[in-house]
C-alpha cells in the first residue's frame, strides 16, 4: 500500500478527481457564471412558460381550496389527513439532502460536496417552500393559520398548546427554512461578488453589488466568511436530524396504531436523506448536461450520492422489517392488524409499490456498473422518490383508514384537486429552479476553486513533505 501514495495514478484510483479535464480557475468561473450573463436563451423562456403555468395551476387550486373548503380534497372522516400531509412530509424529506450536503458533509470535510452543495441547498429551500404551503392551507381556516405561531394576537389571546407535535412542527420547519436560507445565502456571497465583478451593465452591477454585501475577497473577509460558514454549518447539523424527527413526532406521539411507534425518528431521517439524495441525482443529471458542467459535477459525485442512496435505502428497508417484527412481537392486536392491513388490505398496492421502489430498487447500486450508469441512476432516483412518496401515503392513509373501531373504517380517494395541487407544487419547485439557474451560480465557484487548489497542493507537496505513509495523506 505504501507505494500507492507516491503514484499519482493510484491516488486517483483511490480518490478519483472531483474536477476532471483540469480546467484553469478562470475556466471554472466562466463555466459557472456564463449562464447568468448570456442573452436569455429561448429554451429558458420555454422552461419558464411550462413551469410557470403549472405554478399558476397550483395557485388556482389553492384559491379554489381556500375559497371552498378542505372538502375539495379527498380527506374524510377516518382519514383526516390525506395527500396534504403526505406531500408536506414528502417535500420536507426532499429538502433534507441539501442541509446534509452543506452542513454535515462540510463538517466532515467531504470535499466532493463542493460541486453539488449549492444546487442541493437550493433544492432544499425550494422543497421547503413547496412543503411549507401544505401546513398553511391544509387547515380548515387558513386565514387563521397564523394562530399556530406564538405571535401576540387579539383573536386567540392565549398561548398555543405546547404539547402538540404540530406546534413543534411549526418551530422545526420554520427554523429549518430560516437557517437553510441563511446558510445558502452566506455561501452565495463570494460567488455573487464574482458576478458583480464581471458585470457589464450598471443594473447588474448594482443588483449583484447589493446582494454581495460589499464582498471584496480580502483575507479578513475570507476569515469571517469561513467562520460564519462554519457556525451556520454547526447550527444546521442538528437541524438535519431534528426536522424530520419532529415531523415524525406528528405521528409517533399519537395513539393510532401504525403511527404510535418509537422507530419513527431515525426511520424518517434516513428516509428523508434517501429521498433528498434521489432528488439531487434526478436534478443534477439534468443540470450538468444542460449547463455543460460535467467536468465539475463528475461521476464521482454521482456515485457517492448513489452510495448514500444505497445506504439509506437499506436502513429504510430495515425499518420496514422492524415495524413488522414489533407489530408481531408486541402482541398488540391493533398494531398487528394495521400492518397486516398495510400489506394485504385495500392499500396493499400502495404498500408494495413502496417496498419495491424503496427497498428493492436501491439494491441495484451494489453494482458499480449500475451505480455509474447515468440513465439507470436517473430512472432509479425517480423510482426512489415515487417510493418515498408512497411511504408517507402508506403511513398516513393506511393507519388512519382502519384504526380501532371497525364501524368507523373508511377509504381515502384523492380528488382531481388533490392531484393537481401536488402537480402544481412541482411547477413551483421547477419555476424556482428555473430562476435560480438563470440568475445565480449553480455551483459554488469559490469552494470548487479552493478545493482544486487544495487538491493540487496535496498532490504536489504531500508525498515529499511527509514520511510517505498513506495514513498521513488521509490525516491531512
Amino acid at each position, binding site marked *: 500500500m505504501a507505494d500507492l501514495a507516491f503514484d499519482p495514478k493510484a491516488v486517483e484510483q483511490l480518490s478519483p478527481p472531483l474536477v476532471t479535464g483540469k480546467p484553469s480557475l478562470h475556466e471554472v468561473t466562466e463555466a459557472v457564471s456564463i449562464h447568468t450573463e448570456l442573452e436569455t436563451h429561448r429554451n429558458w423562456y420555454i422552461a419558464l412558460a411550462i413551469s410557470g403555468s403549472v405554478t399558476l395551476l397550483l395557485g388556482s387550486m389553492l384559491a379554489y381550496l381556500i375559497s*371552498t*373548503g*378542505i*372538502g375539495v380534497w*379527498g*380527506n*374524510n*372522516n*377516518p*382519514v*383526516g*389527513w390525506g395527500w396534504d400531509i403526505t406531500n408536506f412530509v414528502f417535500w420536507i424529506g426532499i429538502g433534507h439532502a441539501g442541509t446534509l450536503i452543506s452542513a454535515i458533509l462540510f463538517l466532515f470535510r467531504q470535499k466532493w460536496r463542493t460541486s453539488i452543495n449549492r444546487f442541493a441547498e437550493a433544492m432544499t429551500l425550494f422543497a421547503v417552500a413547496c412543503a411549507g404551503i401544505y401546513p398553511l392551507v*391544509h*387547515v*380548515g*381556516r*387558513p386565514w*387563521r*393559520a397564523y*394562530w*399556530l405561531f406564538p405571535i401576540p394576537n387579539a383573536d*386567540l389571546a*392565549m*398561548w*398555543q*398548546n405546547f*404539547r*402538540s*407535535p*404540530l*406546534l413543534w412542527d*411549526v418551530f422545526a420547519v420554520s427554523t429549518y427554512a430560516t437557517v437553510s436560507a441563511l446558510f445558502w445565502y452566506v455561501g452565495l456571497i463570494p460567488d455573487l461578488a464574482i458576478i458583480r465583478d464581471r458585470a457589464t451593465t450598471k443594473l447588474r452591477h448594482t443588483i449583484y453589488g447589493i446582494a454581495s454585501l460589499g464582498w471584496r475577497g480580502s483575507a479578513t473577509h475570507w476569515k469571517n466568511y469561513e467562520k460564519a460558514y462554519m457556525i451556520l454549518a454547526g447550527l444546521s447539523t442538528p437541524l438535519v436530524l431534528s426536522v424530520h424527527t419532529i415531523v415524525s413526532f*406528528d405521528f409517533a*406521539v*399519537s*395513539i*393510532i396504531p401504525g403511527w404510535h411507534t418509537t422507530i419513527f425518528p431515525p426511520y424518517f431521517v434516513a428516509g428523508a436523506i434517501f429521498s433528498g439524495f434521489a432528488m439531487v441525482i434526478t436534478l443534477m443529471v439534468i443540470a450538468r448536461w444542460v449547463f455543460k458542467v460535467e467536468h465539475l459535477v463528475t461521476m464521482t459525485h454521482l456515485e457517492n450520492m448513489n452510495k448514500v442512496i444505497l445506504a439509506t435505502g437499506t436502513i429504510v428497508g430495515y425499518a420496514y422489517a422492524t415495524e413488522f417484527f414489533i407489530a408481531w412481537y408486541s402482541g398488540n*392486536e*391493533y398494531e398487528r*392488524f394495521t400492518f397486516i392491513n398495510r400489506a394485504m388490505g385495500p392499500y396493499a398496492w400502495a404498500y408494495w409499490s413502496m417496498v419495491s421502489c424503496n427497498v428493492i430498487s436501491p439494491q441495484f447500486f451494489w453494482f458499480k456498473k449500475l451505480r455509474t450508469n447515468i440513465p439507470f441512476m436517473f430512472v432509479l432516483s425517480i423510482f426512489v422518490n415515487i417510493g418515498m412518496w408512497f411511504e408517507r401515503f402508506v403511513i398516513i392513509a393506511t393507519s*388512519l383508514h382502519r*384504526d*380501532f*373501531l*371497525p*364501524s*368507523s*373504517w*373508511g*377509504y381515502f*380517494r384523492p380528488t382531481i384537486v388533490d392531484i393537481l395541487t401536488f402537480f402544481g407544487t412541482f411547477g413551483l419547485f421547477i419555476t424556482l429552479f428555473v430562476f435560480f439557474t438563470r440568475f445565480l451560480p449553480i455551483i459554488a465557484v469559490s469552494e470548487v476553486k479552493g478545493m482544486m487548489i487544495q487538491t493540487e497542493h496535496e498532490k504536489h507537496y504531500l508525498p515529499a513533505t511527509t514520511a510517505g505513509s498513506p495514513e498521513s495523506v488521509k490525516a491531512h
Partner: protein
Amino acid sequence: MIQIEGIGNQTGKKFWRSLNELAATPKFKEWLVQEFPEGATDLLDSGSRRRFMQLMAASMGLAGLTACRRPVEKILPHAKGVEGLVHGAPQHYATVMNVAGQAQALVVEAIDGRPVKIEGNRKHPLSNGAANAWAQASILNLYDPDRSQQVLEKGKVSSWEAFAAAAKGTFVGDGEGVRVLSGAVLSPTLGSLRTALLAKYPKAKWLEYEAVNEDAALAGSELAFGDRLRPQYNLLKADVVLSLDCDFLQLDNPGLHVIRDFAKRRKAVDVGVSADHAGGHAATGHQATEHKADEHKAEEHKAPAPPAAAAAHTPAAPVAATEAATVNRLYVIENNFTLTGAQADHRLRLRAADVQAFAADLAREVGALPQGLKILGQSDKLIAALAKDLLAHKGRSVVMAGPRQPAVVHALAAALNQTLGNLGETVTFTRAGRESSATAITELGKEIGAGQVKTLVVLGGNPVYNAPADLDFAAKFKSVATTIHLGSEVDETAVASTWHLPESHPLESWGDAASPDGAISLQQPLIEPIFKTKSAIEVLSLALGMSTSAYEQVKAQSKLDDAAWRQALHDGLIAGSQSATVKPALNAKAVEAALAAAPKPAAGIEVVFAPSASTFDGRYANNAWLQEAPEPMTKIVWDNPALVSPKTAKELKLEEGSVIVVERAGRKVEAPVLVQPGHADNSVTLTLGYGRTAVGRVGTGVGYNAYLLRTSDAMGFGTGVTITKSSRTYSLVTTQEHHDQAGRPVVREATLAKYKEEAQFASHEDAHIELFQLFDSYDYSKGNQWGMVVDLQSCIGCNACLVACQSENNIPVVGRDQVSKGREMHWIRLDRYFTGTEDDPEVVHQPMACQQCENAPCESVCPVAATVHSPEGLNDMAYNRCVGTRYCANNCPYKVRRFNYFNWHKDLEEVGKMVFNPDVTVRMRGVMEKCNYCVQRIQEVKIAHKVNGRKPIQDGDVLTACQQTCPAEAISFGNLNDPESAVSKLKKNNRNYTLLHELNVKPRTTYLAKVRNPNPELA
C-alpha cells in the same frame, strides 16, 4: 391656519390681506358669509378647529361603523306583554302530532316564539318523554323552504279567496258526486266535521286511506272476534314475546310505550346475578339488586306519576317486584332483518308468505287449533320449544302479528293469545271504527272509473303516489272534474289536482288527536302559520261555511271547562280519555275456517313492501335529517335498496349494487340490491316511500318507487315474483362499511347462563394493563362530574337519539355524495355489528358519541388548544379557536369527531335557518365539532340553579338530547360524584365496561354489555 378672525387678538406679527380684513369691519364679516356661505360662521368661531376635528372624528367613526358586519335588524316589541316571557329563555308547550300515521304526544321547546326542538311528553303514558326519529325530525318540515306556500289552481298561483269563491259552487245540493279522501282521521274535531259534512251533504262520501295501515289487524280481529278491534300490548307483563313478522320496535311500533316496556324487561337481566369477586369491580350481587330497585326509583323521579286516569292505563304502571324479576325472552319470525329481529333471543328467518304456516303450526302445537298436518316441516324443533315456553308462561306471554301479514295471521295470533290466557293480561283490545284503507281506495277507484265522482277532496295524503298500482289511480284522479288537494307539499297529487291548498304544519294550527290507546291530546300552535296555510279543520270549516275558528271547535269538541281545558293544554292530554277496553270472545271455528280458506302461498320468490325508517310511506321524503339518518339495519342513506339474503343473491348472481328488475303481475320496478345477512331466502324486501317525482329539492328522485309494484291484493307482500339482473350497477352509500368487529371486543355480549356464571364477563374482556402514573391526575372528586352509561341491552338502534342530537345541536346535513366520501356530521352514530353466520347472524347496536375521555388524546395534539378539558370532565370544543388541523380527529380512537369540510349552511334559505337552536353555535366551515354531552343544557340548568339559590343539581335535572328522547331508556347521564345518581349506580353494574380500556384514555361514557336469554332447550 384659519385664524383670520383673530387678527385683532394675535400676539405675533399681524398679517392682513386687505384693508377690510385689517379693520375687521362688519361689512367684511358679511362678505365672508356671502363668499363662503357654508361653514363661514365656523371660520368666525374661535372653537372651529376643535369642531373640525370632532366632525372628522365623528364621520370617521360613522364610516367605520357602517363597515361593521352586524346586520340591521328590526325589533318589534310585543304590543301586549306576554306573561312569563323572558327573551331568549325557552318555553315548553305540550302538543300532539300525527307522526307516521300515529298521534304522538309531544312537548315542543320554543325560543322567542320560534319552535326549535321537539320532545316527547313525559305526562303522556305512551310517550313518557320519548319521541321517535320521525317526530324529532318533523320540526325540519316546519321550516322546509320547499313547503307548499300558496294556493294553486291548475299549477298557477291563486288565493284562498279565489278558492273560497270556487268552493261555494262546488259544495252545493246534496253532495252528489262529492268524495272526501283523507288519511286516517285521528282528530276528534275532524271527525265531528266529517259528521257535519256528511249531514249537510248526505250523498257525499268520506274515505280514509293510509298506504301503511292497520287493515290486516282490524280484519284479523273481525275474523277472530267479529269486531274491528285494535290490540293493545302490555310488554311489561310479558315473559315471552313472539313476533310474527311484527317489527314492534320500529316500523310497526304500536306506541312508544311498547319499546319502553320491552326494554324494561330486557334490563331485568341484572336481577339475581351474583357478583364475580375475581373481577376488578366492587359491585356485589346485593348492590346489583339494590341498583335495580334504585333505578326504578330514578325512573319515577324522571317521570312524575301520570294523572290518576292515565295511571289506570297499564303501560305506565310501575313494575311490580315479581314482574321485574326476570328478563323476557323474544322470538321473532320475520323475512327481513329488522330492529326487532336484532333484539331476538331466537330468530327464524322465513318468507313473509310462510309466516302464516308457522303461525298455524304453532297454534296446533299450543292447542289453539285442533291438531292437523304440520305445514312447515323444518322448524319443528323451534315450534315445539316455543310452544312449551309459551305454555309455561300462560297469561305472561304475548303473540304479536305484523301489519304486512294477512288477516288470518292476526286471527291466529288472537287465537294463540286466547289459548295462552293472555287476553286481558298482556293483550287488551280497544274498538277502532276504522274501515279498510285498501277497500276504501279500491272503491273510490271504481267510482271514479264509473264516472260517479265529480269532486274529489284529498285532505292530506298523496294517493296519486301511494295508491295501489293496480288501480291506475293517477289517471283516474285526473279524470275527476274537480280535484282539491290539501297538503303540506306540492306533491304528485297536488300537481295533478285542480286546486292545491297549502296545509299548515301541526305546530302552526289548532287541532287534537287520539293516540293508539284512544287518549286525546290537544294540538296547540306554537307559531303563526309561516306561509299562507290552513289546517284540515280550517279548510273543512271553510267548505262548510262555518265561522267558528279551529280553536273554538277544538275547545268545543273537548267538552272541557276553562280550568280543565287549561290543564289539558298544559298536560298535553285530556285526562281519562283513553278508549275503554273490550273483552271480546274468540270464535275459534271462524279462525279455523279462515285458515282453511286462506290461499296457500306459492313457492318461489316473494316481494315484501315495508315502510321506510326514514321516509315512512313517503311523507318524510323531503326531510333531509331523515334521509341522511342511516337505515338502522343496513346503514344505507339516501336510498332504498332491495334487500335479499346472501343465499338468494348467490343463486341469482347478485352483488351489492347490482340493479335488478323485480316483476310481478306485469308490473316491474328496477332497484339496486343490497345483500342483507339474516334476510329470508327467496324473498326480496322493497322499501316504500322513495322515488318521489314531485316533492321538494331534498326528496325528488331519491331511490325508486316501490309502490309501482304494490297492488291492492299484495299490500304487505306478494308471491309470484321474478327477478332479473340487469347489466347496470348502482353505488349505494352507507355510513358503515364494515359489519363485523374484526375480532375485537367492541360490543360485548353473553348469554344469560354465562352472565350468571361470570357476572363481570364484559370487563374481563379488557386487555390487562398495568400503568405507572408519572404525574398526579387532575382531581375530579369535586363538583359535578358528568358521565354517561349506555345500556346495549336495551338500545334498539332506532335513530331517535341521532335525530334528536341533530336537532338539538344544529348538525348539518351533507347529502348523499358527501356521505359517500365519509363526511357525515352526526355527533352520535349507531354502530351496528353482525356476529355469527352470514345466514343467521345476530346484531348489536352501539350508540357512539364522544366518550369525553379524561386522558383525551384529541386535547394534547391540538396546536391551538381549541379542545380542552373542563373541570367537570367535559372535553370542550372552542369552535372559534379551532383552525381545523384535523389532528384531533385523527388521534381520536373512537373516531367521533366531525369536521366541516365545506360550509354546509351555504345554500340555506332564511326560513331554513329558523330551525337552529339559538343555544348552540352554528359551526362554520373548517372547524371540528363533536358531542359535548349537550353542554348548553348543562349550563342552562346550572344557571337556573344558581339563580334559584345555589341548590345542588339533582340527578335527572340535566338530560342530554339523546337520553331524553330514547324510547328504550338506554342512555343514562348524570353526576358521577353523586353516589345516588343513576349513572353512578350503573357504573357499578356488573355489565359495565369501558370501550378500548387498554388505551387508558379513561372515557366518561361506558357501556353495559348485552345479555341474551336464549331458550336452553334450543341450545
